[in-house]
């Protein structure tokens, strides 16, 4: 189906049927090769008996912003047509978006209309800064944009063009060019499209493969693939590798998991794995004891009618609280064989190549104290002068070569301190924090089930290292501290949820403080 040579309303009755201009907009993020795609489209038209014009507005947009390329074409009748230099809303036949949110932006700008526009979009995301910078989860979901796209255009072609291109060693411009060919909206054959790529002369083979992948994606997938929000199928449970005796002991713990209500089992299994990996099997048993206590409470306050939500969230957040981020854990994670293998794979290190890894560490005296026996650590911390002097020795940025023997051994040694972790200052501090938090949960659970669930979920606020960690704990304390303000209200849980979400909006917690102020005024 071609958009050309349709007849439109007559101009003064002189010309009955006129050539109709095909109008095409390409929206890309800076650096995606939108210019290459636009040049290819123009060249394909010009080489095959059409007159074409392309324009763009680069300027600052070249630096990672969004760029619009605009192309018009009409069959060549030997006269120069008058093309427009910019698209008119409601008057665009084809929109190619090199990223999903750019498709949204095209719709926002009125380029996509239900009566005529074919919208070809890649479904992959190049996250915008505001999505990435939020302390919580700021990623905008794909589903609403795909839904809007479906409602806005005449025909939607959506696939992960970035992945398609990369899997063939090429750039997204090639797979999008293929999708444009596959969509059949331009009056050129696939061979004519390919001829343009060949004439370009650079990376031709890879481009052609990506082109074909893009073209077939249209045929295979007239409707967009399931979005990223779809739930993943649960993986089949398997056993951890390791000595037989440990495996057996672990099996005994997982047997306890099996006795839980069904909704809690998966989370509990994940949590158990995390805490055992963090410390040892006995720690796993401690974890299960803690969750057991929550389950007993949950049953007593009729959690069954709520799908044991309290237990599910306890399984999640107690595991996170027990597997806190300390120096020992970092050293342990950084020196594992599995980590070495993962880095090699991620960096695409081949057989004949050598990999050096350098870690960026910045220990402070606080971390050192946390790793000392609790008594000694407290003794030092109680003496600010001593603390300051020692900090001067310790506190500096260190570039640590974990592929070299010296630093590997250092970290390996620190990771090995695991067995003494229970006696360390940091552990005592974390335990006390954990118990106080669970006590608060138990206290409110008696009157308000949902509020108790929210108290558990506030654990999400505690994260990071050093200052970030301190900031997280302070936010946690502020939200938990607001509980007396809402207790007894029917919407108490809602308030705490709202405060927690506000706490994740900005770094300093200004939104959170605003929320608490509002609450005090109620």
């Amino acid at each position, binding site marked *: 189906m071609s958009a050309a040579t349709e007849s*439109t*309303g007559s101009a*003064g009755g002189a010309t009955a049927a*006129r050539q109709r201009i095909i109008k095409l907009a390409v929206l890309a993020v800076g650096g995606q090769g939108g210019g290459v795609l636009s040049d290819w489209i123009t060249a394909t038209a010009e080489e095959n008996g059409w007159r*074409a014009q*392309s*324009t763009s507005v680069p*300027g600052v947009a070249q*630096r*990672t912003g*969004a760029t619009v390329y605009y192309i018009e074409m009409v069959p060549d009748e030997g006269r120069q*047509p*008058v093309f427009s*230099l*910019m698209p*008119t*809303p409601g008057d665009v036949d084809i929109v190619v978006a090199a990223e999903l949110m750019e498709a*949204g*932006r095209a*719709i*926002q700008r009125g380029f996509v209309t239900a009566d005529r526009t074919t919208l070809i979009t890649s479904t992959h995301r190049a996250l*915008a*800064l505001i*999505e*990435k910078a939020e*302390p919580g*989860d700021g*990623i905008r979901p794909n589903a*609403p*944009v795909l839904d*809007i796209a479906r409602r806005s255009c005449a025909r939607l072609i959506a696939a992960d063009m970035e992945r398609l291109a990369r899997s063939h060693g090429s750039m997204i411009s090639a797979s999008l060019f293929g999708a444009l060919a596959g969509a059949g909206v331009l009056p050129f054959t696939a061979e004519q499209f390919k001829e343009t790529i060949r004439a370009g002369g650079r990376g031709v083979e890879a481009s052609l493969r990506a082109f074909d992948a893009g073209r077939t994606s249209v045929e295979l997938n007239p409707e967009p693939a399931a979005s990223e929000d779809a739930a993943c199928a*649960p*993986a089949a449970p398997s056993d*951890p*590798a*390791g*000595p037989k005796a440990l495996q057996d002991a672990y099996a005994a713990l997982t047997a306890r998991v099996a006795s839980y209500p069904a909704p809690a089992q*998966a*989370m509990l299994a*994940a949590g158990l*794995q995390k805490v055992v990996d963090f410390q040892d099997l006995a720690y796993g048993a401690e974890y299960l004891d803690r969750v057991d206590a929550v389950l007993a409470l949950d049953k007593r306050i009729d959690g069954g009618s709520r799908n044991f939500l309290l237990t599910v969230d306890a399984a*999640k957040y107690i595991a996170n609280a027990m597997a806190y*981020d300390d120096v020992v854990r970092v050293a342990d994670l950084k020196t594992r*064989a599995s*980590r*070495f293998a993962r880095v090699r794979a991620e*960096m695409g290190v081949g057989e004949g190549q*050598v990999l*050096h*890894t350098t*870690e*960026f*560490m910045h220990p*402070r005296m606080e971390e050192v104290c946390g790793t000392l026996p609790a008594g000694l650590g407290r003794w030092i911390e109680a003496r600010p002068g001593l603390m300051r002097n020692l900090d001067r020795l310790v506190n500096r*940025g260190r570039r640590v070569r974990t*592929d*070299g023997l010296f630093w*590997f051994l250092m970290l390996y040694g620190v990771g090995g301190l695991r067995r003494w972790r229970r006696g360390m200052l940091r552990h005592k501090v974390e335990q006390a924090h954990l118990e106080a938090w669970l006590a608060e949960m138990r206290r409110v659970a008696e009157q308000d089930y949902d509020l108790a669930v929210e108290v558990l979920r506030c654990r999400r606020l505690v994260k990071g290292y*050093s200052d970030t960690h301190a900031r997280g704990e302070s936010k946690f304390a502020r939200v938990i501290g607001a509980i007396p303000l809402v207790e007894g209200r029917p919407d108490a849980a809602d308030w705490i949820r709202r405060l927690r979400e506000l706490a994740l909006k900005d*770094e300093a917690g200004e939104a959170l403080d605003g929320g608490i102020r509002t609450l005090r005024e109620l």
Partner: protein
Amino acid sequence: MAERSFAKEVQQLRIGAGQEFRGEGILALTKALLQCGVGYVGGYQGAPISHLMDVLADGEEILSELGVHFEASANEAAAGATLAASVHYPIRGAVAWKSTVGTNVASDALANLASGGVTGGALIVVGEDYGEGSSIMQERSHAFAMKSQIWLLDPRPNLESIVKAVEDGFELSEASNTPVMLQVRIRACHVHGRFIAKDNQRPKMTVAEALENPRRDSARVVLPPAAFAHEHEKVDRRWPAAVDFVRERKLNERFGPEDGRVGIVLQGGMYNGVLRALQLLGLADVYGESRIPLYVLNVTYPLVDDEFLAFCAGKDAVLVVEEGQPNYLEQAFGAMLHNADSPTRLRGKDPFPKAGEYTGQVMLDGIRAFLRDHAAEMLSDQDRAPNRSQDAVPAEELAAAVPPRPPGFCTGCPERPIFAAMKLVEKDLGEHHIAGDIGCHLFASLPPFNMGATTMGYGLGPASASAFNVPAGKRSISIIGDGGFWHNGLNSSIGGAVFNKSNGLVVVVDNNYTAATGGQDILSSRASNASRSTKHPIANAIRGMGVDWVRQIDRTYDVPKMRATMKEALTTDAPGLKVIVASSECMLNRQRREKPQRAEAVKDGKRIVQPRFGVDEDVCTGDHACIRLSGCPSLSVKRLDDPLRDDPVAAIDESCVGCGNCGEVADAAVLCPSFYRADVVHNPNAFDRFLHRLRSRLIGALQGRRARGRLDFSGMPARAG
């Protein structure tokens, strides 16, 4: 080395008469200059003129074959002053820059040039950076033309018309002894089209010949009493000469029927937009056959009164399509109609909006509204009384779903760590007044850095902090780029601050090019350039101006050092201006230069170490503090397939160039130990391999030992249903 190479395209500059030229508007413009026998060309880069400067630089060989001199001017004032060569000598000269900012800078030279007048054709090509994608204040160049009596061409935006405007411009300039400004909008500069070329011409007189046979005429020097005579000369002789030329040569065009009750007067640059609106209204065809009479002003200053009045004769109403404010054309036409007692109604900024770009929608709405009022019978029922259908998707729903995407620093940009360090300094010393400047570094005023309170002009960052040169508890910080520094900052900003004993801190962001305009070389560029003199250190110039406290940092990525130096500058007792020159090469340019070399070396079996950064996802806790201190496009976040994790963790994609900023920031801000640098050694030598074997064996043994005492979950997905 400029961002884009035109080495291939410039070959088209050689084509001869009858051959078809295909390419971008800006390249066509360059070809037109050569076809007109231009003797010298100058200018200053800046979108959309950067490409013209790049084309000229890449085409220098062709220019010199023709005896054409090309000068990369220090700034627009210098470019404007270059046209002095056409005052006494019959040499055609052309200069180009981004307007209105460049015209602001050049206006001193232009006013003097216009006063004395020219003998040879003098053409000023201004890239009108207005509307979508513009990076500057929204103003019109038109005012400059009027106030200095420079003629302004605004050709229809197709290659043929633009090329013709260059030819007409030189002739008009010579016929009226007045410089001529040729205005091209940003889309016209980048439009891809075609025209039939002519042969290039050697200048009738070269600048070398002029130099050997000097001439002068004190009547052309702008000094009293000559200056008073110039004013009269402009009005009494040059203006009428120009009007006669425009009329006789029919530089303005008429389209559509001879008669009609309504008509449209438009700037040439608006032609395609107007035609599209008429096409959509069923009043024009694809080839520009219009049912409405059109009067197209390829020359928007001076106006030809009788031409306009003849167009209006017998019409009920005429619409002026004039983009931007003030509406000089509408005002002038209104006066003409009034003085002629004409009954014709003039419409312009109503129905059009008072300000803003005439986009497709604005053009359609404006022309439709005009016709509805004055010639409704020409419109279809639908256009007479349009039923605006509800938008398929409400705007609020879209705005909630689609995040904005402001521009920012590129991947690996050396300016990022400068502002990361500054942000850390502010954490220690509190917020400061930060004066911004023009250049990539102005992106620091956007998220995530949000630094920089004002931008007052190119090279004027430190000058714009002048008023803050008073005793106070804090010092002002001002930013200037290397481009701005050489454009005029050395004098206006550094010299002024030294002279006035400023106590503030100036950070010179030196990336070896004018990076924001496309990576052109400047005095302090560290690359060798065959036709220019480079490698003049900024720090030397600053010391030469009399600054004692100068710190040169040659690796901006060293965030701790950058932070310590800034802190020192803001707290030291040393009197006078404090200047930090922060130098690292623009990463866009560096990658463009090094990437092919690196690939070649790897292919040739040479030992190459290639760095890239990564994040240990199980160490990252998902707070994203690193992103708030970076904003690097390659540093993103991803959701983990782990039911225990609520927040996405940091992740670095393969576009990472290994600049080191994230590791340095994590260290300097004491963030977290998740970042690591992975150096891949391509073609390792025997020693590399030996060491690797040794290390792997010992490390492997230790890892195996520990693994035997614990459970290994690495093969298991931590996943809940």
